[in-house]
C-alpha cells in the first residue's frame, strides 16, 4: 500500500488482484446480488486509489478496504430500499433470489447437488432478509472470518455492540432456516 500511495500503478493492480475476491464476496453476500458485484468492487478500489494518501501506514489494509466496502454496500442497500416502491414484490423476490454461483462437486449425485444448491440459495436469501446493521456484522464474521476487534474497527462500533449484533443476526438466521434444516433432517 505504501507503493500505491506513491502513485505506483503496478502496485495498485497487484493490490486489487490480492483483495478482489474477499471484497467481491463481501458485497455479494451482503446484497445477495451477483450482478452488482463487479461494479461495486471496482468502486471500492477506485476509492482506495483516490484516497490512497489518507491511508495510515501501519494500520491493517484489509480493515481499511473492508471499511470502504461495507460503507458502499450499506449505501447500495439504502438506495435499493428507496427504489423498492418501483418494484413489485414478485420482482423483488426474483432479484433477491438471484442465482448464486454453483460450484458442483463432480462426484456428487444430481439429486444431492440440487439439494445443496437449494440450501445455499435459501441461506443466501435468508441472509439478505436480516436487517442491514446485523447483516454486515454477520457476513464479516461468519463468511469473511474477521476477528471481533477488526469488525469493530470496520464498522466503527464498540466490541460489545459487535458481539451483540452478531448474536442477534445468528439467532434470526437460525429461526429463518429452521424449517429447512428440519426438512433436511427428516428421512
Amino acid at each position, binding site marked *: 500500500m505504501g507503493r500505491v500511495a506513491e502513485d505506483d500503478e503496478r502496485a495498485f493492480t497487484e493490490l486489487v488482484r490480492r483483495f*478482489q475476491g474477499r471484497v467481491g464476496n463481501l458485497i455479494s453476500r451482503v446484497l445477495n446480488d451477483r450482478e452488482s458485484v463487479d461494479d461495486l468492487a471496482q468502486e471500492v478500489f477506485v476509492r482506495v486509489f483516490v484516497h490512497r494518501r489518507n491511508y495510515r501506514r501501519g494500520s491493517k489494509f484489509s480493515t481499511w478496504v473492508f471499511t470502504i466496502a461495507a460503507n458502499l454496500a450499506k449505501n447500495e442497500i439504502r438506495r435499493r430500499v428507496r427504489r423498492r416502491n418501483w418494484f413489485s414484490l414478485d420482482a423483488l423476490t426474483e432479484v433477491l433470489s438471484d442465482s448464486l454461483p454453483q460450484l458442483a462437486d463432480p462426484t456428487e449425485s444430481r439429486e444431492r447437488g440440487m439439494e445443496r444448491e437449494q440450501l445455499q440459495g435459501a441461506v443466501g436469501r435468508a441472509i439478505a432478509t436480516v436487517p442491514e446493521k446485523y447483516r454486515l456484522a454477520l457476513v464479516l464474521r461468519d463468511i469473511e472470518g474477521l476477528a471481533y476487534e477488526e469488525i469493530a474497527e470496520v464498522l466503527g462500533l464498540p466490541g460489545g455492540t459487535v458481539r451483540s449484533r452478531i448474536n442477534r443476526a445468528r439467532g434470526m438466521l437460525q429461526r429463518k432456516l429452521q424449517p429447512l*434444516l428440519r426438512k433436511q433432517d427428516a428421512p
Partner: protein
Amino acid sequence: MNRCDQARRLFGAYWDDEVTQAEREWLESHLSGCPSCRQQYEQFARTLETVGSLPRTDVAADLPERALAAARRAAAVPDRIAVAPARPMWIQVTATVALLLVGLSGLLPWLETPAVQSVFARRETRVAEPRYVATATSGTAHRSDHARPVATLADSLFDHSEDVEFILDPVVLHRGRAQTPSRLPKGVQGEQAVISF
C-alpha cells in the same frame, strides 16, 4: 433464567471458542443431558456451517485493469468523490458574531486603563463655562457689579463665549416666467424657474 436459556446464551461464544474452561465444561455437560438444547445447538452449528461454506463469488478477471482505468479518471476529477458538503450560512454568521463579541469583551479591560481614558478625554468637546452677563438697568448707565446671571448652564453645544453674528440676505422670489434671456433658438419655447437667495 433457567438452565436451558443460560445454555442457549452461550452458543455463540462456544462456537467462537470464547468461553472459559468452566463455561465450556458446564455447557457440554448440559448438552449431553438435554436433548432439546442439543438439537438447538446442532441447528445453530449447521446454520453457521452452511453460511461459512457458501461458495465464494468470483469477480471479473479484468477487474484490476478496469479499476485502474476508473481510478485514473477519478483522480483526474477529484471532485467526483471528495465533494465538500455545503455548509449553511448561519453557521458562518453566528461564528463571526461570536468571535466579534469575544474580541470586544477582551478589549473592555484595556479600554478602562488610564492611558486610553486620557486619549479619549483629550478628544472631548470642551464647552466653555457660561459667562455672567450684566443686564443694563433702564434709564441708568450705571453698571452694577452685582449683575444678575441670565444663564448659568450651557443650553446647547454652541460656544456661547463668543459672539456669533448671522447676516441674512433678503430673499427675492420672482414669480412667473424667467427674466433671464433664453439661450434657446428662436421659436423654441422652454420653461425655467429661477429662485434667487
